[in-house]
């Protein structure tokens, strides 16, 4: 019985590892081994590895351009989202808890409305009233802000719930801090992890979004990768793998910071007998 109890969890973990690792390994072999796909087998697992394909792609000026477009769009999407969602989430928690359900529902809408419906609706409208808007790369920003809204709201919501928000705000005000000061010197520092988390999630949404960019004909990174699959497939896949590894590292860092911060907050709550 004891043996069975031990073997099942291990088996599941093994299956999970294979499920996630096998495609990555295949991807890596395709991207970094100078061997025709048809001859890839277990005999040549360690032969002719090279990053030439990836380097060719990285040197492509089109890559640099698309990366810069995506990063700029990501930057402004993060700004717009935080500018909208930080005050909204704080307001919901401080002054209008009964609106929480409504805000939550609104932020979930992007899950329900398919991107194509969003683009067709919005682009149809703007093409007639403000065509210049759709011409700019930054026309992606509002779309991406909507797509990333659920992550931003949830991330901030969780961060705020962990704080004794009302008391912190009151304490700061009684000490002479104006609303701006409260926001800048108390709320934002304590929501640091949530903000970073929200920003990274938003960036990954932007770096991975294809449908809207494709429909609006923007040369973003995912668009470039889709195209490069035809001309330089090894490089494109190598790039995909690189981005995957980089984002994994980023999120690991974020979760380390978050753990550190949550020990602060949880320890505080346990001391005061108010475990969240």
């Amino acid at each position, binding site marked *: 019985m004891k043996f069975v109890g031990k073997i099942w969890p291990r088996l599941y973990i093994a299956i999970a590892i294979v499920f996630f690792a096998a495609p990555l390994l295949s991807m890596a072999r395709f991207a970094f081994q100078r061997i025709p796909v048809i001859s890839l087998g277990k005999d040549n697992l360690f032969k002719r590895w090279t990053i030439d394909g990836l380097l060719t792609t990285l040197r492509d000026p089109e890559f640099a351009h698309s990366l810069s477009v995506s990063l700029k769009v990501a930057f402004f999407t993060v700004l717009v989202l935080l500018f909208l969602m930080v005050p909204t989430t704080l307001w919901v928690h401080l002054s209008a808890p009964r609106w929480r359900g409504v805000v939550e529902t609104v932020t979930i809408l992007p899950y329900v409305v398919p991107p194509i419906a969003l683009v067709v609706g919005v682009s149809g409208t703007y093409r007639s009233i403000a065509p210049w808007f759709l011409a700019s790369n930054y026309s992606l920003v509002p779309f991406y802000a909507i797509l990333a809204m659920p992550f931003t709201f949830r991330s901030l919501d969780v961060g705020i719930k962990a704080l004794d928000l009302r008391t912190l705000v009151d304490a700061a005000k*009684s000490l*002479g*801090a*104006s609303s701006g000061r409260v926001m800048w010197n108390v709320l934002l*520092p*304590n929501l640091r992890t949530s903000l970073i988390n929200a920003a990274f999630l938003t960036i990954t949404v932007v770096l991975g979004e294809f449908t809207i960019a494709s429909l609006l004909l923007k040369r973003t990174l995912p668009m470039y990768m889709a195209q490069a699959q035809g001309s330089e497939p090894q490089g494109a896949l190598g790039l995909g793998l690189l981005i995957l590894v980089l984002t994994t590292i980023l999120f690991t860092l974020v979760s380390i910071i978050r753990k550190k911060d949550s*020990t602060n907050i949880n*320890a505080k709550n346990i001391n005061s007998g108010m475990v969240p």
Partner: protein
Amino acid sequence: MSALEFVNVSKSFGDVNALSNFTIALEQGELVSLLGPSGCGKTTALRIAAGFETSDTGSILLGSTNIIGLPAHQRRMGMVFQSYSLFPHLNIRDNVAFGLKVGGVPGDVRKKRAEEMLDLVRLSDLGHRMPHQISGGQQQRVALARALATEPHVLLLDEPLSALDAKIRVEVRDEIRRLNRDLGVTTMFVTHDQDEAMSISDRICVMDNGVIEQIGSPRNVYNNPATSFVAHFVGSINSLPRGNTRVLIRPENLVLATHDESAQWRGAVTDITFVGAFTKIAVVLDNDKSSVSVLAISSQIDHNIAIGKNIGINEEIR
């Protein structure tokens, strides 16, 4: 002129009158407790004074200035909350210096002042720690230091001891009393705990349903309760029959009269609880079956008293 004065302050939340014509004046340096059950309006009064809640009518005078309408951050009221409200991202010293920082006090001056304040609450060696690294009692003392660092007009304390365990509670309570006396800061202390209010206050304001029942010194409120609510809420009290009426007598003002056949009341002992120096004896009266509790000094109790035994009770003659 009073340091802080509420004049006919009223506040309702929907149909509920949280505060009705609340009027009280705090003298400079005085410590006044607002005492009452939860929902009696005591916290509402405090929050209106702090500027976190607006009143429907009435005025609040700080010295001779009406501060109704003045935003919370301009009122210079130091406040300490029930839940430790230290800023989790700042160390202890920076927490204490926060009010000075937003007040534009230069860095070296506020650092010195923060150290002084920490000295005052005897926590000067903890300045570099983060809030989660110190105990609850220490956090509340830091919160006191932080509230006092800006030299507030009035110190407002909203059940500051409720989250602490019994021993620490007494320590922090004594600390509050000491600071109030040493610094002469006018203090308003909200609590639902009558022992706390009795031991710390110059005056107690007993409240129920948004109305002041009585204002007076602890001794006065205890010995001469103005209403039946005050008599029952502050300390415990017995209601005993006398002729056609009933009298209210505190347990310690009753004496057991084991051998007195002509005792004022007679009844059967139902419970004996030993609480150290005192022993509480519960009795059910023979004539109307009402429950009475008698508090006697343990060393003076007749050893023959036992559960089920019929005894006499007299009012203590003073």
